[in-house]
């Protein structure tokens, strides 16, 4: 009997769907042209990119020409934030940016870098569930505010922001609105024709597509200053020879994700998520969910803080049991600070240390979850037995 392996780190990266890999395969060694070449190989590469752009756009109900492929989700965030901030400042519209305390580093560090370049910024707080308040956003908007960037859903705590309301506030004040939907795209329905968002970031490898390819939706009429200069590919916004196989893979992954969403698979996953959360909370005392619950939470996402112990220990013992998870604990990061996201939701340092994230895929089964529910409690017990804080009964 081979031991069970349960990969529960799908917020970090997902398995490339074999159908996606199959779609990509011919573009390495057969149809390997550069889409900018005029000859047959170039034309077939260009056609493949066009198709993939249409598929990727369809996932969020956008027009193909409004989707720009980049080399990573992070790059799309950088392009959106810096590209819009520079462009709007150049037009004399101002140089104040608003973001939230729980953004991914890609957005947050871009904002902070702009801070060094003479921009001003405001970082909005979040509540205990990780929610940004539309009223707080409205209050923070100044006459010189040009750009707001607030993520669609958080990677560490799974909270889905009230994007529609936040976007409406921006619209009302004529401020550009970007949202980092890396964790949300492909997992919950997004329609840019209905949502008041101007730019939206996606990454294929978080939705069963390949690594190394991101996309930025840019609403028609918006001008950005590119962050990567060169040959002028991707409508001048992202230079560099197009990564044809990865783009094709993104397209295929988007197509599959759309079909899944249309079939309501996110609802089924959310039910399994709630079974999982319920199981963990009931089997492990002094443990709580981090982030929001129910419809305000990503359907594949669970995250907890387990009191008295530290994330790294849990990770390693779970790993030994074939369960692959992650943690926002200090010890697992280079920084030795616990996750700023958890701290922003009001957790104290010691509690934040005990964070654990278990994020499912569409391949996760109930048996997998039951296996975790069997293995996880004794691991916690074992670590707590060593903890000076734990009051053994």
């Amino acid at each position: 009997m081979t031991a069970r392996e349960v990969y529960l780190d799908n917020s970090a990266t997902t398995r490339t769907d074999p159908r996606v890999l199959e779609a990509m395969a011919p573009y390495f060694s057969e149809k390997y042209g550069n889409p900018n070449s005029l000859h047959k190989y170039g034309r077939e590469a260009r056609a493949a990119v066009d198709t993939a752009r249409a598929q990727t756009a369809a996932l969020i109900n956008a027009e193909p020409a409004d989707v720009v492929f980049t080399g990573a989700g992070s790059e799309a965030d950088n392009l959106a934030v810096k590209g819009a901030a520079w462009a709007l400042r150049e037009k004399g519209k101002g140089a104040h940016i608003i973001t939230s305390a729980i953004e991914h580093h890609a957005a947050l560090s871009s904002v902070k870098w702009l801070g060094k370049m003479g921009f001003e910024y405001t970082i909005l707080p979040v509540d205990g569930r990780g929610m940004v308040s539309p009223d707080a956003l409205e209050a923070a908007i100044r006459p010189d505010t040009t750009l707001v960037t607030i993520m669609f859903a958080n990677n560490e705590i799974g909270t889905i922001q009230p994007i529609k309301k936040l976007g409406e506030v921006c619209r009302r004040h004529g401020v550009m609105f970007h949202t980092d939907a890396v964790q949300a795209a492909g997992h919950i329905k997004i329609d840019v024709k209905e949502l008041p968002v101007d730019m939206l970031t996606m990454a294929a490898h978080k939705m069963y597509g390949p690594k190394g390819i991101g996309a930025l939706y840019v609403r028609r009429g918006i001008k950005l200053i590119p962050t990567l200069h060169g040959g002028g590919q991707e409508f001048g916004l992202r230079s560099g020879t197009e990564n044809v196989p990865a783009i094709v893979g993104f397209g295929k992954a988007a197509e599959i994700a759309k079909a899944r969403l249309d079939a309501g698979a996110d609802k089924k996953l959310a039910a399994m998520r709630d079974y999982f959360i319920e199981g963990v909370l009931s089997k492990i005392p002094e443990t709580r969910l981090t982030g929001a619950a129910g419809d305000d939470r990503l359907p594949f996402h669970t995250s907890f803080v387990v009191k008295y112990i530290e994330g790294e220990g849990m990770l390693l013992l779970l790993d030994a049991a074939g369960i692959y998870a992650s943690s926002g604990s200090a010890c697992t990061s280079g920084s030795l600070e616990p996750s700023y996201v958890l701290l922003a939701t009001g957790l104290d340092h010691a509690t934040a240390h005990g964070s654990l994230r278990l994020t499912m895929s569409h391949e996760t089964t109930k048996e997998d979850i039951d296996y975790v529910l069997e293995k996880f409690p004794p691991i916690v017990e074992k670590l707590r037995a060593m903890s000076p804080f734990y009051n053994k009964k």
Partner: protein
Amino acid sequence: MYNQKVVDYFMNPRNSGRIEDASAIGEVGNPVCGDVMKIYLKINPQSEVIEDIKFETFGCAAAIATSSMITELAKGKTLANALKITNKDVADELGGLPAVKLHCSLLAQEGIQAAAADYYMKRDGKLPAGLSFPESSMSNGGAEEERFVSEDSRAAD
């Protein structure tokens, strides 16, 4: 990039070459890209019908295909009627050109105009009154909707 018809008119050019005893020759340059086209006409002095027409073009495939097409369209027409052919007619007849290539079709239209001008200048020493040359219908042809701050782009490097 190009449709089948454009490719065909490029690959199998109609009426390419020179007419040694041409009644008129028109030579035009494309201000956009620096390309050049030369049109040779053999005109019946009584009827002013274009009995023979040939072209030489230094330009892209679209320039050659449009040259090719306009010679077909003009052949057998009176000079006055040939002058009514616009670059848009030529592009339409070819089933359309890529936006960045619309400017190329101007060469064809203006080539006929230049040849006609040569014909009348040689014959009368002036252009006939009332002769009108069609305005180019590509004022914003080729200009992509400007939506991104974009650098100039180049082919595959």
